[in-house]
């Protein structure tokens, strides 16, 4: 590069910021979201203070209740064991382990109101997995929904992405599918749809699963789960009656 070129190059780099725009509308929208989130961030603190004081009281009440049940069972001579067992999950696979907050549930409803059929996995091998950051991205012809699944320590368990691919051309779809097939380490079938499992090396192995239906494409990715676990998660996506 000559000196003139270098000056032009430095000038272009320096001016790059002026070429990137962010509408005031969008900026204000994020500002409102931030303000709301700051308020929410305060709330759990207050709630935890209440919990701190309430916990001993609740523990005492529960102790009384348990003692009462034992006392009554002695009096009526009925074995406790016959009075019921803890609730089991529907398919004995822990389908009730994924928690979704009300706010995230509302986000799903809003996305679905726009014609996107959200189908989230219902199973996680990790207890108390929570679905967070449920967001729709209206990218081009392929809008997609992304969700993060975290454990109780707020660590990533897996990520999920559902893309509406109904507007992708058939030729292009076939071409990409055959490439996915070639790249995948394992293929199996579930609900008449192929599941592609791929692992990516590195210091930590990323496990990915793709499922493609005529209307939607699903991607699951995880560093934490094993191949079998992430495949089980993929199988819990309710694909039946997907329009």
């Amino acid at each position, binding site marked *: 590069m000559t000196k003139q070129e270098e000056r032009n*190059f430095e000038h272009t780099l320096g001016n790059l910021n002026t070429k*990137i725009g962010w509408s005031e509308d969008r900026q204000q929208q994020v500002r409102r979201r931030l303000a709301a989130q700051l308020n929410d961030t305060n709330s759990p603190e207050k709630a935890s203070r209440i919990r701190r004081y309430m916990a001993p009281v609740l523990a005492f009440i529960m102790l009384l209740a348990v003692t009462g049940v034992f006392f009554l069972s002695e009096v009526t001579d009925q074995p406790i064991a016959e009075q019921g067992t803890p609730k089991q999950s529907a398919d004995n696979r822990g389908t009730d382990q994924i928690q979704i907050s009300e706010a995230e549930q509302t986000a799903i409803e809003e996305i679905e109101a726009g014609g996107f059929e959200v189908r989230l996995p219902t199973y996680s091998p990790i207890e108390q997995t929570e679905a967070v950051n449920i967001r729709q991205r209206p990218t081009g012809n392929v809008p997609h929904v992304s969700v993060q699944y975290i454990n109780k320590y707020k660590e990533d368990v897996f990520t999920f992405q559902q893309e509406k691919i109904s507007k992708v051309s058939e030729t292009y779809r076939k071409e990409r599918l055959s490439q996915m097939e070639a790249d995948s380490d394992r293929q199996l079938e579930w609900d008449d749809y192929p599941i592609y499992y791929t692992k990516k090396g590195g210091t930590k192995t*990323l496990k990915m699963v793709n499922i493609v239906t005529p209307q939607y494409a699903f991607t699951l990715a995880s560093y934490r789960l094993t191949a079998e676990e992430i495949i089980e998660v993929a199988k819990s996506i309710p694909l039946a009656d997907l329009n």
Partner: protein
Amino acid sequence: MPSEDTVQKYIIEWYDMYSMAIYKYIVKMLNDVQQAEDITQETFIRAYKYMKNERSVNNPKTFLYRTAHNLTVDHIRKHSPIQLFKDVFFEREDSRASIELIVEGREESEHVFEDLLSLKTTYRQVIILRKVEGFSIKETASILRWSESKVKSTLFRGLGKLESRLSEEGVYDKTGRKEF
């Protein structure tokens, strides 16, 4: 110690002052406007949580850039693989279009932006902070938590890569005139 409300007020003030710059920095790192908005928001949330724990911030701008930088790099590390599938379907239709949408202006800027995005993350971040955002060597070192000598050497190598890519594409001719 400032009250939670005071901290909240600071954060909103900082948002008004720095959010545009932070957003543009993230866009240049990721080429994804949606993610850039999310990470911008998260940057200020992190700043709030940090200050709420009775910790003070001497230079808010550098602090916010460092937070944004950490979140962006974390995002690249954790989430880029899942984008692969998206890219599979987007490759032809959207990748070029998105660059055109983000960078409004002459073709030359688009070329530079595109080549910048193709560089590895360390080169990209140091070039953006030094040459686009205009931070000093010392500030860049503080944001990236590198030594000043590492900033200098990585910048030198990164600029070399970027220049050679632009030259290969014929963005600059041999007489020193731009071809646009």
